């Protein structure tokens, strides 16, 4: 199989090859792989704080009897299944529209849509909290426009709370993904489009049959990174729904409790149980690994 692949004509990894990848691999080994293995070792231990003892598979057993873990798992999947497709579709469509050289103010529009991802977390949080309070800007506007009669219970109803979080993440990251698509589209040879246009291929078909297939590597890339980001979702849920003086729920009825937030709570908010927290974090590792594999696999299938 490798014999017929075009890559086999490339040079073998020699001294040069190692010099190119060496520094990155050495750093990743020291600051990622080693701590990850350490944390794997910790996942076989249990106890509070420094009073850890070997527990074997006890933590995995605890996982299956932990209702909060299942709440967090369900919530994480809801966010993943709804948010990632919505955001990436929006980003791709926006990028395609903006890539048309006939559009006026392209630079301004592109800059504007990218802006959200340069905000700091603090600003963004204060902002969304104040916009979505019961008698805040969003509800007032919706009532004035006659879209709803009474304010939407953003902070007190699980469905609306999750919706709000999805809106917030989508707001922040759509422009970011759009930039990847735009950059990739700019590398596509314009003459292909021109030829298709002259042949009378309609806009949507050019988008579906020319742009999307050519963007496949980038689409795969953004899908994988967004999957990783959403499965590790922490910042937004923690700061937007965070509040109370001691414990407090993560959104109404823990509707915004994600796996990462649960890990954080187990490590820092609750009496620290590092072993169990490490076990939960490996659940994320497995989920991401499986989903990324499926995505790579799906992308390969289409190529054939």
């Amino acid at each position, binding site marked *: 199989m490798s014999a017929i692949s075009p890559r086999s004509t490339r040079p073998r990894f020699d001294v040069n090859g190692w010099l190119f990848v060496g520094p990155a691999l050495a750093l990743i080994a020291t600051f990622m792989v080693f701590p990850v293995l350490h944390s794997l070792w910790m996942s076989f231990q249990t106890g509070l*704080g420094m009073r850890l003892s070997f527990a074997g598979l006890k933590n995995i057993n605890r996982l299956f009897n932990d209702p909060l873990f299942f709440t967090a798992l369900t919530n994480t999947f809801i966010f993943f299944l709804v948010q990632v497709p919505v955001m990436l579709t929006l980003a791709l469509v926006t990028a395609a529209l903006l890539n048309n050289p006939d559009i006026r103010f392209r630079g301004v529009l592109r800059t504007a849509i990218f802006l959200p991802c340069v905000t700091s977390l603090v600003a963004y949080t*204060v902002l969304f909290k104040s916009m979505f309070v019961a008698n805040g800007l969003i509800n007032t506007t919706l009532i004035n426009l006659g879209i709803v009669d009474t304010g939407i219970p953003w902070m007190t109803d699980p469905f609306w709370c999750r919706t709000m979080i999805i809106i917030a993440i989508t707001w922040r990251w759509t422009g970011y993904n759009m930039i990847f698509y735009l950059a990739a589209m700019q590398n596509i040879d314009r003459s292909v489009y021109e030829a298709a246009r002259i042949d009378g291929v309609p806009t949507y078909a050019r988008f579906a049959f020319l742009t999307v297939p050519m963007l496949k590597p980038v689409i795969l890339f953004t899908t994988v990174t967004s999957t990783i980001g959403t499965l590790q979702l922490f910042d937004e849920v923690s700061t937007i729904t965070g509040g109370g003086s001691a414990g407090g*729920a993560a959104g109404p009825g823990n509707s915004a409790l994600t796996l990462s937030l649960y890990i954080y709570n187990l490590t820092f908010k609750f009496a620290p149980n590092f072993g169990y927290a490490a076990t939960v974090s490996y659940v994320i590792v497995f989920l991401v690994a499986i989903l990324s594999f499926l995505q790579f696999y799906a992308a390969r299938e289409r190529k054939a």
Partner: protein
Amino acid sequence: MNRKTVALAFASASLIAITAAQAAEVTVWCWDPNFNVAIMKEAGEIYAKTHPDFKLNVVDFAKADLEQKLQTGLASGVADGMPDIVLIEDYGAQKYLQSFPDAFAPLSDKVDYSGFAPYKVALATLDDKVYSMPFDSGVTGFYYRKDLLSQAGFQPADLQDLTWDKFIEIAKVVEEKTGKKMMAYDPNDAGLTRIIMQSAGGWYFDKDGNLAIEGNAALKAALEVVQKIQTANIFRPAAGWADWVGAFTGGEVASVTTGVWITGTVKSQPEQSGNWGIAPIPKLTIDGATHYSNLGGSSWYVLAASPAKDEAIDFLNDIYGKDIDFYQKILVDRGAVGSLLAAREGAAYKSTDAFFGGEPIWQTFSDWLSKVPSVNYGTFTNEVDSVVAAHQPDLAKGASVDDVIKAIDEQAKTLVQ
């Protein structure tokens, strides 16, 4: 975390102690720039007057950030870069003391605890040793808008000995007469539940720190009140802290029931001066019910591995343990009610406040402080609290309190281990 690393960390820390004995710089971690950070700096200046070599380095972080740093530092056993003194919220005291044995220095040999509010001492005691220098109190009060309540036909005298049922009745009248809700309430926060529960001497745990959800009369009564408040719809829903604060500073609600540390915030609206009053919080009708409770509050702890441990303890004991004048100053400047009972004999505590219609509110609060029922916050308050908060919306939907307690108990059991 193996013992060897810990031992090594402690050994290296004591090595540093020998070399650093000359320069007594004490580093403190705390979290509120307008409150405990400013107060700690003030304390440092006072102490430096009699101890010219003393240098205090106060570092402020967000509270959640500080807890995270502290927990990472303690867990990794790296003494490097840890503070000498750290502020810990009272609910988390036992969590730290039990999770990181030997990480904090016991102070009971140096400090006379008989002068402090008993509940503050009890919460930092482990195996007969006390580890904290008690700091601010979260003694609770019922802050109400005199103008709105009198418009609804209630005078201050009518509000001194309320039950929660009476409170809800009044709330309905207030809304009818003034169009304003009685209170702001965030159903995702269990603060009010904790206040009511502790007022009757109950907590999520029994005196020995064991989980006590089912059969806990105080918790049950508190959840019943919370359910009545929600179903009677006497509250303006609040989303998070800032929104909750905005509700009463913005004049949207007629009262707020919370810890004394809110006084400064209430007073941040000068145009409402003279319109506010305080009363004891409403009471439950079960055995052991009182008008006194606590919300939040925090204390100072000294790290055992600190090279400047002795200076730190001496400093805390001199200022926070004895200096009555210091307590007057932080009361006037910052609205901080300390838990040293002798401080209430000072002049500032006897002063009256025009904002509250000339009432001696500080004297009143410190009287209530000495009556707060002491409970065992245990190791897992935050765990159980997050479960309780998650179930409060069910109460609004009409779930029976017994069912909710059963559900809380089930979830709490898996978390508390």
